[in-house]
């Protein structure tokens, strides 16, 4: 997490399964197809999660797969994600375009 921009990173709810309480983190990078996520919680690469966050409106349960995991010096986990649902990413693209 960039220390000067942490406040601008988007808070996000992370659901790993229906029977486990959701986790949280921040999106440090977001594009229509990919995202980077920083969280104090550890998840495995390859796992499919859903993300809920706000970006000019609410985005709920955006499906994504964790493609890479790295742990920083403070103990936070940084995840690379790819979005899986094209119908969701199209909406996301619109929101990102409008945001920029």
């Amino acid at each position: 997490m960039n220390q000067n921009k942490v406040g601008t990173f988007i808070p996000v709810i992370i659901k790993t399964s229906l029977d486990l309480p959701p986790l949280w983190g921040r999106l440090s990078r977001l594009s229509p197809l990919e995202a980077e996520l920083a969280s104090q919680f550890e998840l495995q690469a390859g796992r499919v999660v859903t993300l809920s966050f706000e970006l000019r409106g609410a985005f709920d349960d955006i499906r994504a797969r964790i493609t890479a995991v790295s742990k920083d010096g403070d103990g936070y986990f940084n995840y690379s994600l790819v979005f899986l649902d094209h119908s969701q990413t199209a909406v996301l693209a619109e929101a990102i375009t409008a945001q920029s």
Partner: protein
Amino acid sequence: MFNTIQIICASEKNRLILRGIFKNLGADAVFSLDLNDALAIFEKARPAAIFIMDGEEPPVEIQLRELRRVAPFIPVIPLLKSRDAGRAVELMKAGAFDCAQNPWTEEALLPLYKKALNISGTTLELDTKGLRSRRRILALTLAALCALTGFSGGVYFGYKKYAARPVPQDTFALPYAHPTGIVIRKNSVLISDWHSQALYEHDAGNFNILRVVNLPETTPVALAAGQDSFWLAGTDGVIEKRLPDERCTRVSKSAPLSPIPDGACFDGLYFWTADSRSGQLVKRMPGDALTAIKTFTYPGRKLGAFTCDTRFLWAADPGLKGLVKMSLDEPERIISTTELPAYADKTLKLTALASKDGKIWFTGDARGRGLVFFKDEPK
């Protein structure tokens, strides 16, 4: 690292738990019972991060707002009493840096604590264009300086390694053609010439002539160095002792010696004369009369030039084409013969030698011209 954190917590039980955890994390934890208490000591405590207990009064949202009003960039971390992601995200939207979930453990709080300390500070962003530009110029200048230094070093190294070094001159041409004797002095070299009947004093460095002393009554055939004087042998067999003053004043002279010497030297104790024609070496007393003590036969092939020092007798031998070293005690025994490359010139005729400070000086003529050179004494 600045590790003071402030914890707003009214519950004694939770304070006890958190005190132990943050102590183990190495944090300097300052506890406040409520927001007012926290704000009262905030200036003094100057924490790097604030942890707020969720579920107490006033609500965390209000505490966040008030704290951000006082310190807008300080990381504030609510301590949730349950894992509630929705609540955590709401608080993060309200300005919390992150949220900790219950149960609070060292392992769970460590990343939050470390990250909070690392990101603590203002988000001021400077316009660093000018700075970066100056940095770039500085970097380029440094790179240019390094390159210049490296290039200079390379040139210097190459010059030192490959450039032709001036070889110290060890051979000098003489402006006269018939040298017969040589004496090495401190800063000059004295050479006699029979044809011009003169003594030439040369600068020892460049061999420029410093002075010329004419000897109208003497035809010099040999010179020998003494302690504060020198001896000069003439064609008549007379050896004169002279002072090295302006006019080379004569101090004494011997009776005509037989055989007529064409080489002479003083070993510090005895005077030696040499006759190249007969090959005789005569050991003499160093008095004015130069009384003969003993005569020896030169052990080499042909005696060309002769000298001695306090340790050895030396002779240039054109027959052996070398420098012959002999013992002072047994002059008829050759200690060593060292080849003289100068004898490759068949016209070379060495006529006089001198030994001084580990160097052997030679003078003579070749191709009708006088010359002088020196070599390190053979081991």
